[in-house]
């Protein structure tokens, strides 16, 4: 099957799911007990202020009407008024989302490099000491929650051994780079502020590492299992018999097919990165979208909560489609199977 056809089908399939998600979270945000207008006004505000906010949020209208208005606004590029930031949620998404994506991309980078190194070491020396060490690391990575890593890193690498900053994105006194893409690290690079670029990377190191370890461990285990499996395959013995250099056998016949299962589970990794970012950004006071989301949630800012869930849903869907297309590109059988 053609790759673009597969891509199109995936996109068409995901649209109704996302619409369903919008109905689900929108309904929940309006139906569940609790009074967002009262929360926004504060416990001592007079009733007419609460009523005013209720009208402003359209909470006085029936549910279906609110939902239709929500769509009308969405087509105008407006996700609703945020109680916390006192402006349109769209502006918040544009400001904070790239800052989180930058962190997640760095975590994904760590994850891929770490998983490859650990997985290959374990796979090459299977059932020997390196393999056992990697296996212990992998179990720790999978079992220790990212926020526990975050707190441990904070204690060890920031307080005991002051190697890294404990919070924020810039050192005090740093001038933020001009906004080009919205990702400060990339903007700093594009505008030639290398000091700022390295400053951001330095601030990003611990949170990205804490975020990546769980997914890294999972992938390392899958790559290891794949390599051990592929080493025993008959075609590997055959090419070895032909006298193909061991390095080529390793990269082409053992490593490459072992990466495909790792790629197919990367969708799950993205889920864990997007979810765990909420705790990690909180610990390291990273000024990103997840921390904005937590703020919105703690203040019952319904428009922002709906937007946070949906934006993450869209990011997750796009990332999953990219991963799936990559997997089909590497192994066309996957595309045929899913038909």
């Amino acid at each position, binding site marked *: 099957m053609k790759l673009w056809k597969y891509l199109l089908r995936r996109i068409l399939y995901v649209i109704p799911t996302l619409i369903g998600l919008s109905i689900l979270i929108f309904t929940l*945000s309006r139906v569940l007990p609790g009074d967002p207008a009262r929360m926004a006004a504060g416990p001592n505000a007079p009733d007419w202020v609460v009523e005013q906010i209720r009208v402003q949020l359209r909470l006085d209208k029936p549910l279906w009407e609110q939902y239709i208005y929500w769509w009308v606004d969405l087509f105008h590029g407006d996700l609703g008024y945020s109680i916390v930031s006192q402006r349109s949620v769209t502006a918040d998404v544009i400001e904070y989302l790239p800052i989180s994506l930058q962190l997640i991309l760095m975590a994904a980078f760590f994850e891929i490099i770490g998983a490859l190194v650990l997985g290959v070491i374990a796979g090459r020396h299977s059932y020997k000491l390196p393999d056992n060490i990697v296996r212990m690391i992998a179990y720790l990575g999978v079992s220790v929650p990212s926020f526990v890593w975050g707190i441990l890193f904070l204690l060890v690498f920031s307080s005991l051994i002051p190697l890294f900053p404990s919070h924020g994105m810039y050192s005090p006194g740093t001038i933020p780079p001009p906004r080009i893409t919205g990702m400060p690290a990339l903007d700093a690079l594009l505008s030639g502020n290398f000091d700022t670029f390295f400053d951001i990377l330095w601030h990003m190191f611990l949170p990205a590492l804490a975020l990546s370890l769980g997914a890294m461990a999972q992938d390392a285990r899958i790559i290891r299992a794949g390599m051990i499996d592929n080493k025993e395959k008959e075609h590997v013995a055959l090419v070895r018999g032909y006298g193909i250099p061991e390095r080529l056998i390793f990269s082409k016949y053992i490593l490459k097919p072992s990466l495909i299962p790792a790629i197919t589970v990367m969708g799950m990794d993205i889920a864990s990165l997007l979810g765990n970012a909420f705790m990690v950004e909180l610990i390291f006071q990273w000024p990103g979208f997840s921390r904005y989301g937590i703020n919105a949630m703690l203040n019952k800012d319904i428009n922002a909560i709906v937007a946070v869930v949906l934006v993450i849903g869209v990011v997750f869907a796009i990332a999953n489609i990219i991963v799936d297309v990559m997997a089909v590109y590497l192994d066309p059988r996957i595309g045929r199977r899913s038909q």
Partner: protein
Amino acid sequence: MKFMANLDKYGWLKGLELGKKWYKFRRSPLSIIGLIVTLSAIIMAIFAPWVAPYPEHAGFYTDFANANKSPSWEHWFGTDEYGRDVLSRTIFGFRYSLMMAAVVLLLVVPPGVILGLIAGYYRERWIGKLIMRIADIFIAVPPLVLALAICSLTTPSVFNAMMAVSLMWWPWYTRLMYNITSSLKEEYFVYAAKVTGASSLYIMFREIFPNTLGPLLTKITLDVGWVILLGASLSFVGLGAQPPTPDLGTMVADGAKFLPEYWWISIFPALAISYIILGANLLGDGIKDAFEG
């Protein structure tokens, strides 16, 4: 023995060949470690009032004279900002973590499994498609994000956290059962049952279901760790259990305010969460290997 035979009226347990599985399970030292870790956590949770050195410190309790004491012989894990024994609170914390896992899985597995069986069996019909499309909606967002959002829309509490996690956890079971059922329904034993005039319900629950017990059991054990992680994350953010509940996630978050000076307040509960999840993962992998290998 009569009781066991009655319990196993349909031969499901016998079909699992548990003796053989146990033999395989206990040969792996990691699996045994997992079993011991998990059992120790369960025992500590059940007997918390007797195991904990200061059981009265679990709830509202203040002793400012002893606040923020570092680990010592009297307080192995030190004391927190109210002078409460961190070890005692951690032991009580196991209760909330394990209760979370037990309640969520009890609520989630039956409906998830039944929906998955129906969806897999009627894969071509609208009912099967509808169920799977609805399940897809709940899976369209990372579980933690949806659970956080739902918790935030209600009043944060242990109970609401359990409900929120349950609400978005069932689709994983539906999906698992759907995959197994839709491949098993093409097997000859299902055709044979159909030929003899068995009803669809009979085929689903008595022919297909017993064959899914292995993967199902594996998934349930592995999920114990995930649910505990999710519950701890919710309360860490402040959208789950509320103080003074001795919940591990809440304790980590409260103690994090006192890092690095009073590190023991958050680090020990954090390690306790990792301990219990590690145990559940090792146990789950052991069961998986026993059933698959």
